[in-house]
């Protein structure tokens, strides 16, 4: 259950951020960006409530999914994040003395929690563009899998994230570049604490025809610490309350042709509370038109 919140917080924070295509720019009408991705984290340690790093039984979650943005109008973009296959597991705990399995590992496979949303271009002309995004987290995953209810592919709660992005493009020497910042408020239900989301990213293109783009992100989450323990939630949801982190996430995106491209990224928390202390990774193939 702890993995529900730890992994999913890490996933939805680190994972979906790196999936987004346009920063503050909505997709033009009739155009889109779609990505088939694999995201995973294998964690054997976590940040405690005091910010220290403690070990835990090795956990893994592997999400295979689809992310899409489509320009409904020049200002309005539809967004869907769909992890259609999610696998969560934890390792066997084995005696180093006898080799006996003391606590057997477990795994679950299921659909994952899904996001749908709309992005609206508030200011689409000028040196800095602004947009607002509303994303709804649909709890389609398994929130209490395994014999102890400690394996999850979803957090079991419906959340609403309202986020504002500001972006600009510029030249860095001879290199085409852009920068974005965002801030948002994530309203969570079922006793989970609400969250402030914030981040910044810089992208720079290289190589002939700008085929290679490097992106550096600094993202974070702060808890509003307004969650309440709810008898209807497994007690490990305590971890859902007041989880915080700041992470760095570099990404490489390589454009194969006018439409197809591949990307790879990782995200690692540089500080945190009640969140895994191992990096997550993501690779994907995207298509834009």
């Amino acid at each position, binding site marked *: 259950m702890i993995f529900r919140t730890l992994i999913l917080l890490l996933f939805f924070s680190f994972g979906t951020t790196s999936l987004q295509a346009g920063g503050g720019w909505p997709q033009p009408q009739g155009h889109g960006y779609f990505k088939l991705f694999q995201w995973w984290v294998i964690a054997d340690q976590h940040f405690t409530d005091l910010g220290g790093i403690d070990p835990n039984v090795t956990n893994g979650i592997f999400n295979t999914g689809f992310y899409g943005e489509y320009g409904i109008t020049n200002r309005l973009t539809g967004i869907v994040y769909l992890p259609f296959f999610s696998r969560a597991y934890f390792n066997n705990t084995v005696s180093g003395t006898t080799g006996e399995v003391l606590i057997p590992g477990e795994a679950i496979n299921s659909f994952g929690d899904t996001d749908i949303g709309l992005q609206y271009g508030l200011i689409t002309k000028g040196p800095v563009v602004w947009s607002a995004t509303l994303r709804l987290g649909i709890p389609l995953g398994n929130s209490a899998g395994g014999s102890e209810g400690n394996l999850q592919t979803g957090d079991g709660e419906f959340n609403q994230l309202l986020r504002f992005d500001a972006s600009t493009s510029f030249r860095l020497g001879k290199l085409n570049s852009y920068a974005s910042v965002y801030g948002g408020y994530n309203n969570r239900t079922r006793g989970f604490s609400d969250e402030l989301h914030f981040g910044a990213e810089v992208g720079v293109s290289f190589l002939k025809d700008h085929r290679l783009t490097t992106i550096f992100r600094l993202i974070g989450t702060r808890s509003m610490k307004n969650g309440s323990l709810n008898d209807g939630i497994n007690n490990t949801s305590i971890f859902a309350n007041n989880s915080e982190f700041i992470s760095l996430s570099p990404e490489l995106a390589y454009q194969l042709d*006018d439409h197809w491209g591949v990307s790879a990224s990782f995200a690692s928390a540089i500080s945190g509370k009640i969140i895994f202390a191992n990096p997550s990774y993501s690779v994907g193939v995207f298509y834009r038109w």
Partner: protein
Amino acid sequence: MKLLYPPCDNSVRNRLGKAPNFEASKITIMRFILLLSLPFLFTACIGDDIIPDTVEERVVITNPIDSLLLGTTHRFEARFLNRVGQIEEELVDWTSSAPEVLSIDAEGRASALAVGTADVTATINRPDTDPIAISHTVNVAEEVATPVVISDRTGTLRTTTFYTLGGDFVLKSVDDQLVLELADNYEASSNLPGLYLYLTNNPSTTANALELGEVSVYEGAHSYTLPTTVERNSYSHLLYFCKPFNVKVGDGAFDN
């Protein structure tokens, strides 16, 4: 800063430029996906986390008494705990340091013969290994308290993580039932999910441990009444363990 693009056309990546069209790009992509998929088929399998859980082999007298009334008997019991703290059947040799005061037979039955003090010793003798023994002092007297006095066992909790855990504890007999009392200075982090308390002979694992229940008190004095199957010396440690993480949070060894 120089703007490169009109602010409302396409996504950021698009505005960074276009790459040449490659004929074989789709084939390359499929190969890429296949290559990427292969590692996940293996890394997503359940593996093994090996924990160091070796403890010192020892023998314990599970039902000691501090005093025995002259002319009465007491049947001592002992058990051998192996290098992972698991009970193993072994033959116990019983001896008394003063047989004229307190005699003891091969079954551990002690007889109080004279006023005085004697050390009862339980020894495990196995081939090719050093003997393992434990001794306990018994006073033989003409009058003893009723019920028979059994000294309390005490200890102090310590955290082995970055989570808060601490405080003193005592195991005592109350109305012929063992009670584990946590003192006023007890504190534990309430941010741990699924924090459970165990009695164990191996503080590294919950294997072979007795689960006392999920922790619901995080500060101050409180107590647990132990099952009647538990004897005074059945366990050597308290263990606080996070079940969802399968990880030890802290422990406390009995001092006596």
